[in-house]
């Protein structure tokens, strides 16, 4: 490809025009504006609960002690502010999509590449992380029901505190999801609603049972590691709030978005945060906080075992977790394949990422690749390392979105926006601060891995992407 005639800065700042976005094929068939507040809340709750809560306690409590309850609230507030900003950006762009698409149409190509790097990290690592969590619950379920479980060597990563060779169940889960996605399976709104109900019921059951063994003495030493510990735990926990932005991506189909959107976001956030805080409080009341560190696999089920001195409750919980985490894995993996697809279509990745298989009519190349990468991560990297990587990617993407809202308001104040952030400019600024605070308390090794990844992505952009961008053809004309 010949060198483009435009300058590097122009390349980095060029934006994907809205025209040419998918409208021609079937988009017009949409039942426009058909989603109401309740369904939107279901999206939010459905995509959020389940990513982290089933296993995040054993990671976060050792960092903050009982103060982890505050961490849950901090992370929830940051996620809520970010989701509001996300909703405005989404509504300013008349295509529905991920924050990658919004960034590309509003903030330019280089930023879009950065956001894409964050999102790929978020979705890719989240897929791996939840499947590792699934593996723990599967083993717990097998053990409760049949008295055997997959040996440690084949169900833990080699760098786990209690090491094995390979996490086989996690790899199998990812393989199954990849197959389903290749065949074009998808979750309907009804399945989503059922999953939400399963998750909420088992968590409610957990809270009720755990509260019967509540002992305030366990909360006495509330913040053994002080504010720093609470902040660092919020970083780990933030991972369990990803998916809240699903509400914002449904933008163009929502009835009366200006009122529905913030209502649904706030309601979903309150439900999710409420459940998280209750789960955390109930779990903390059952045992000294130091014990959580030893309950890496199937943490909540183990707590129930200790409370009930029997297995029925933990069996129900483990079964609920196995079913619902499966669906979460499917959804996050799907998200990743579709982001890769959009990048391939835009020319920022090789076009094979946008290739659709003739037999299945799905992007098979992507799905296979995502499956392989996620399987490697899930097979070899332990859960705690994964969780922080998801959080850092998500938080960075959220900061870019909040900044984008401010930039767009300044640059194009008259652009029609179906939804505007309430309390502008305070809300986006607060969002940046909240996300920034949590980011600042993440571990140094997370930062190094993250910076490395983003650098690789940007180098790829400078060396390859900017020469192959689909916008080149337009610029030359």
């Amino acid at each position, binding site marked *: 490809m010949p060198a483009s005639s435009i300058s590097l800065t122009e390349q980095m700042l060029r934006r994907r025009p809205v025209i040419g976005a998918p409208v021609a094929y079937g988009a017009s068939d949409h039942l426009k504006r058909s989603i109401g507040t309740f369904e939107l809340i279901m999206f939010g709750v459905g995509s959020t609960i389940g990513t982290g809560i089933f296993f995040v306690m054993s990671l976060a409590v050792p960092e903050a002690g009982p103060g982890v309850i505050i961490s849950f609230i901090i992370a929830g507030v940051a996620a809520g502010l970010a989701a509001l900003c996300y909703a405005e950006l989404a509504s300013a762009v008349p*295509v529905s999509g991920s924050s990658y698409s919004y960034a590309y149409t509003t903030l330019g190509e280089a930023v879009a590449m950065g956001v894409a790097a964050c999102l790929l990290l978020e979705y890719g690592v989240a897929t791996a992380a939840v499947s590792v969590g699934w593996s723990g619950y599967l083993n717990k379920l097998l053990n409760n029901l049949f008295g055997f479980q997959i040996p440690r060597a084949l169900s833990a990563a080699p760098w786990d505190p209690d090491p094995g060779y390979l996490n086989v169940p996690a790899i199998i889960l990812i393989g199954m999801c990849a197959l389903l996605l290749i065949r074009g399976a998808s979750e309907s*709104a009804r399945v989503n609603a059922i999953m939400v109900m399963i998750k909420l019921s088992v968590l409610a059951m957990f809270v009720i049972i755990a509260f019967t063994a509540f002992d305030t003495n366990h909360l006495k030493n509330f913040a053994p590691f002080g504010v720093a510990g609470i902040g660092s735990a919020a970083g780990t926990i933030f991972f369990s709030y990803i998916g809240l932005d699903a509400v914002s991506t449904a933008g163009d189909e929502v009835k009366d978005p200006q009122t529905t959107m913030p209502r649904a976001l706030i309601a979903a956030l309150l439900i999710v945060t409420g459940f998280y805080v209750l789960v955390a409080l109930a779990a903390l009341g059952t045992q000294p906080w130091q014990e959580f560190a030893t309950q890496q696999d199937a943490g909540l089920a183990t707590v129930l075992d200790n409370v009930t001195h029997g297995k029925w409750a933990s069996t129900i919980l483990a079964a609920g977790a196995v079913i619902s985490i499966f669906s979460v894995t499917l959804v996050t993996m*799907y998200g990743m394949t579709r982001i890769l697809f*959009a990048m391939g279509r835009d020319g920022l990745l090789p076009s094979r990422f946008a290739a659709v298989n003739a037999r299945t009519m799905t992007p098979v190349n992507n799905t296979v690749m995502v499956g392989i990468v996620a399987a490697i991560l899930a097979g070899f990297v332990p859960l705690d390392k994964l969780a922080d990587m998801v959080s850092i990617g998500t938080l960075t993407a959220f900061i870019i979105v909040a900044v984008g809202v401010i930039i767009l308001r300044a640059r194009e104040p008259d652009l029609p926006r179906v939804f505007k952030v309430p309390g502008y400019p305070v809300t986006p600024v607060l969002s940046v601060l909240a996300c920034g605070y949590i980011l600042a308390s993440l571990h140094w090794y997370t930062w190094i891995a993250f910076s490395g990844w983003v650098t690789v992505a940007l180098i790829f952009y400078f060396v390859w992407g900017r020469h192959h961008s689909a916008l080149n053809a337009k610029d030359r004309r």
Partner: protein
Amino acid sequence: MTVVAGYRAGKVGLSGLHLAVRLARTLDTSLTVATIVPRPWLTPSLARIDGEYEHWADHLAADSAKEAQRYLYNLASGIEVNYFHRAHRSVSSGLIEAVDELDGEVLVLGSLPSGGRGQVVIGSTADWLLHASPVPVAISPPRYRSYTGRLTRLTCAYSATPESVEVVRRCFQFAERVGAPVRLLTFAVRGKTMYPPEVGMDVEDAIMEAWASQAHEILEGLKTEGVVGEDVVLEVVSGRSWQEVLDKTDWADGEMLAVGSSSRGEIRRVFLGSHSGKIIRNSPVPVMVLPG
């Protein structure tokens, strides 16, 4: 050479005969109405039940021929019509033998009349024949009617896989034989929206768009390679389900859709391509399955 129409009194109705007449006209050949009746047991029974059975089977054959004759009296003017019957333990194998014996060029079957909304419904006989027939099998939608016309156009369903180039070739051979124009059609069926929609609810539309342009490129490639002529019409029809895309397609009066049965080695006689099966069931026009 003749067009063989499978027919049995009261069972598959009229639509198959209509299609058979149209094909016979188009191919300028005769029409043979073949009725396969159950074969009686060869061991005589003391109760003479086998005799009664044989009697019934003979009646069935005669009735079928008579009924078909009545229908075809006006319909098939100018076409040589023959009647053929055979006792065989399986209808589908019987029909294949009939095709062999009569030197049939196409085998025509009617849809079961139970199918609503003008779509092709295949019974177990047809289902088996679609996989096993050595000659093309054409199936009519229920209530298909054709009084005078010939085949006006052959639409070839092209799935853009390497194997389907072969289907295109066979389509063109057939179309050349009957002198009908060919249209190449690729269907793009949109995947369902994933919930919760973490990457937006339109992303499957974008995938469909990519698939459609990919299919266009491949179809253009077929022109450049000379697989199809320069004047052939290429179309991509997209929609949310197989039913929708087939309904949405513009069909000419007297048009027929051709699909390939999937040609993967030994199992080719067992499986129709999964897409072909869906196309057959949802087609509002007659479908012809070209054997691999």
